[in-house]
């Protein structure tokens, strides 16, 4: 709770620092504030406000997910120097919105009540709609914001209808009461409840861009300023899955009723994401489809809802976000300035900047799930616990999909290492970018070497 207060004060502070022309200190203040929030969240052992009424519950999984969100957001902020030129005049506005949106994300991974879930999703989304459209002179950015807003509002409608039906069936928004009702009624829960849960899942799967609710994702990822795309493909994904897994593990004994729904959702998402990604020329669109595919893998853990689902999704989201940060960092450093940044813009990177090329390669291998990277263990844990609960078919499909994904990740690696690039002078990359790229890569390999240490967070 104190972390949320810190972050909201930080958001206002950033807005006012911008107004009174202290733009130089913006980034240090933000990083300091995020650190304070991180520490407060990590050491928070229970609810601070007595009047909280079980609205936000900072239990161990919520703290782990929340710290991850803050960490990744700090990474995104470190990537902003040099990549916010489009917003020189209103940089503090975008920064402030990003912090407010982070608060929404933290609410989404710690809710104990359907009202706070809804409020969290809105607090995450509304600043995001604006951030996507913050490149105001760019028609593509405007279009992306419009699309995201309209479809997001539509999905929110589904979510609200779902919440209303659940309330109608159980008479409460509180998770404890809802779970209790499910237990006492033992499978005889009113069908209002079932359709309500289904609608709620639909609303959430829109936020994590699971097929067939993914149509907005490529256009929005492509049209948004790249720094916002980075934020969306990492923080928003983590928050969405944190909310999903909290919901499915929230004490409903008969969650398997929705097995069919999540089964179809997972398979469609993986397959569509991976196969369409192979056809993409633009790197940004390719990363968008690959992020859809990754949502599919994480949906497997939602589908075979076991006690391990929480930690499996956490590790997967951690690994994926680290790799994403590196990839988008490299992309912004070398390719973002081209009108249509296709795979050829990565050509010959290993000659120009071998260290960065190696980091990018490790990130791509981690996304594909090659051993000694964090991505491998992310996939391994999810698949292993799925096999443990006898979901063979979905694991086989996921394995085949990983093979497909290797194709387009390798295409980028080949472009970096084995193709001749243009001989223009190598670009200057800000020091903070190097910090993010190297730091994330190191963390990635560290998790790959000692994956068990992450489990202790739960």
């Amino acid at each position, binding site marked *: 709770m104190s972390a949320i207060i810190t972050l909201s004060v930080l*958001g206002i502070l950033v807005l006012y620092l911008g107004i009174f*022309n202290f733009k130089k200190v913006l980034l240090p203040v933000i990083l300091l504030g995020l650190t304070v929030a991180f520490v407060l969240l990590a050491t928070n052992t229970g609810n601070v406000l007595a009047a909280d*009424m079980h609205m936000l519950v900072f239990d161990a999984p919520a703290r782990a997910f929340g710290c991850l969100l803050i960490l990744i957001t700090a990474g995104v902020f470190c990537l902003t120097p040099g990549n916010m030129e489009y917003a020189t005049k209103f940089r503090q506005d975008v920064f*402030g*919105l990003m912090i407010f949106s982070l*608060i929404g994300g933290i609410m989404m991974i710690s809710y104990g009540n359907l009202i706070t879930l809804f*409020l969290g999703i809105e*607090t995450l989304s509304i600043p995001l709609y604006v951030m996507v459209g913050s490149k*105001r002179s760019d028609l593509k950015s405007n279009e992306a914001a419009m699309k995201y807003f309209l479809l997001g509002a539509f999905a929110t409608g589904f979510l609200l209808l779902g919440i209303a039906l659940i309330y109608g069936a159980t008479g409460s928004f509180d998770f404890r009461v809802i779970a209790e009702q499910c237990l006492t009624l033992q499978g005889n829960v009113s069908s209002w409840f079932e359709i309500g849960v289904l609608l709620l899942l639909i609303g959430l799967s829109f936020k994590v861009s699971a097929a067939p609710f993914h149509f907005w994702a490529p256009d929005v990822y492509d049209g948004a300023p790249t720094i916002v795309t980075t934020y969306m493909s990492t923080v928003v994904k983590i928050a969405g899955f944190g909310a999903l897994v909290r919901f499915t593990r929230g004490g409903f004994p008969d969650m398997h009723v929705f097995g069919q729904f999540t089964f179809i959702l997972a398979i469609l998402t993986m397959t569509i994401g991976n196969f369409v990604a192979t056809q993409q020329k633009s790197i940004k669109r390719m990363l968008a489809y690959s992020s859809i595919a990754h949502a599919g893998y994480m949906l497997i853990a939602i589908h075979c809802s076991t006690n391990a689902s929480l930690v499996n999704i956490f590790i997967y989201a951690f690994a994926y976000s680290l790799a994403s940060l590196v990839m988008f960092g490299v992309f912004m450093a070398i390719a973002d300035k081209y009108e249509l940044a296709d795979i050829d813009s990565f050509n010959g990177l290993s000659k120009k900047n071998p260290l960065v090329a190696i980091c990018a390669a490790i990130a791509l291998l981690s996304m594909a799930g090659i051993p000694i990277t964090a991505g491998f263990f992310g996939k391994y844990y999810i698949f292993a616990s799925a096999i443990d609960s006898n979901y063979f078919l979905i694991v086989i499909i996921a394995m085949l999909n990983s093979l497909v994904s290797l194709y387009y990740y390798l295409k980028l690696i080949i472009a970096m290492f084995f193709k001749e690039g243009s001989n223009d002078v190598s670009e200057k990359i800000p020091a903070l970018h190097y910090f993010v790229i190297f730091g994330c890569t190191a963390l990635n390999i560290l998790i790959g070497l000692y994956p068990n240490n992450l489990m202790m967070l739960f």
Partner: protein
Amino acid sequence: MQAALFYGLSIVAIMCACGVVVSRNPIHSVLFLILTFFSISGHYILMNAQFIALVNIIVYAGAIMVLFLFVVMLLNLNKESEPHKSDLVKIIAATSAGLFSLVLVGVLKGATLPAYEGMMDSENGLVKNLGRVLFQEFLLPFELSSILFLSAMVGAVLLGKKNVQA
């Protein structure tokens, strides 16, 4: 009496909601939407929730609808420039929407709901009780919503201001 009012209001609400979608002129759509809001406000009054009914009229039928009219004016929609979707898209959309409503009706038709005591209290919807619930049980969401409002404010200024000053 109450049942008659309920059904009357429901029919008006549904007809007007259909009118919003069907009418070609966007201004007519907005006017239909206002009618829909009014009939929903009637429902709220039937449930003895006068405050919500009034808020619905002031905020939705009043303020938000003005915004909608502004949007219609800003977009400058004309009949000629209205985009036309292909028939295939229309058929797909109609089919999926129809299937979805079929599922909803099918599920909700056979549903039985347990009766709740305490929810029949006619005092429930009054402002006093609403305030008590809002400021005690739902205090945290209430305070957190101010963050949402603030970010909406910042967003509106960011997107709407012509030359954002330094």
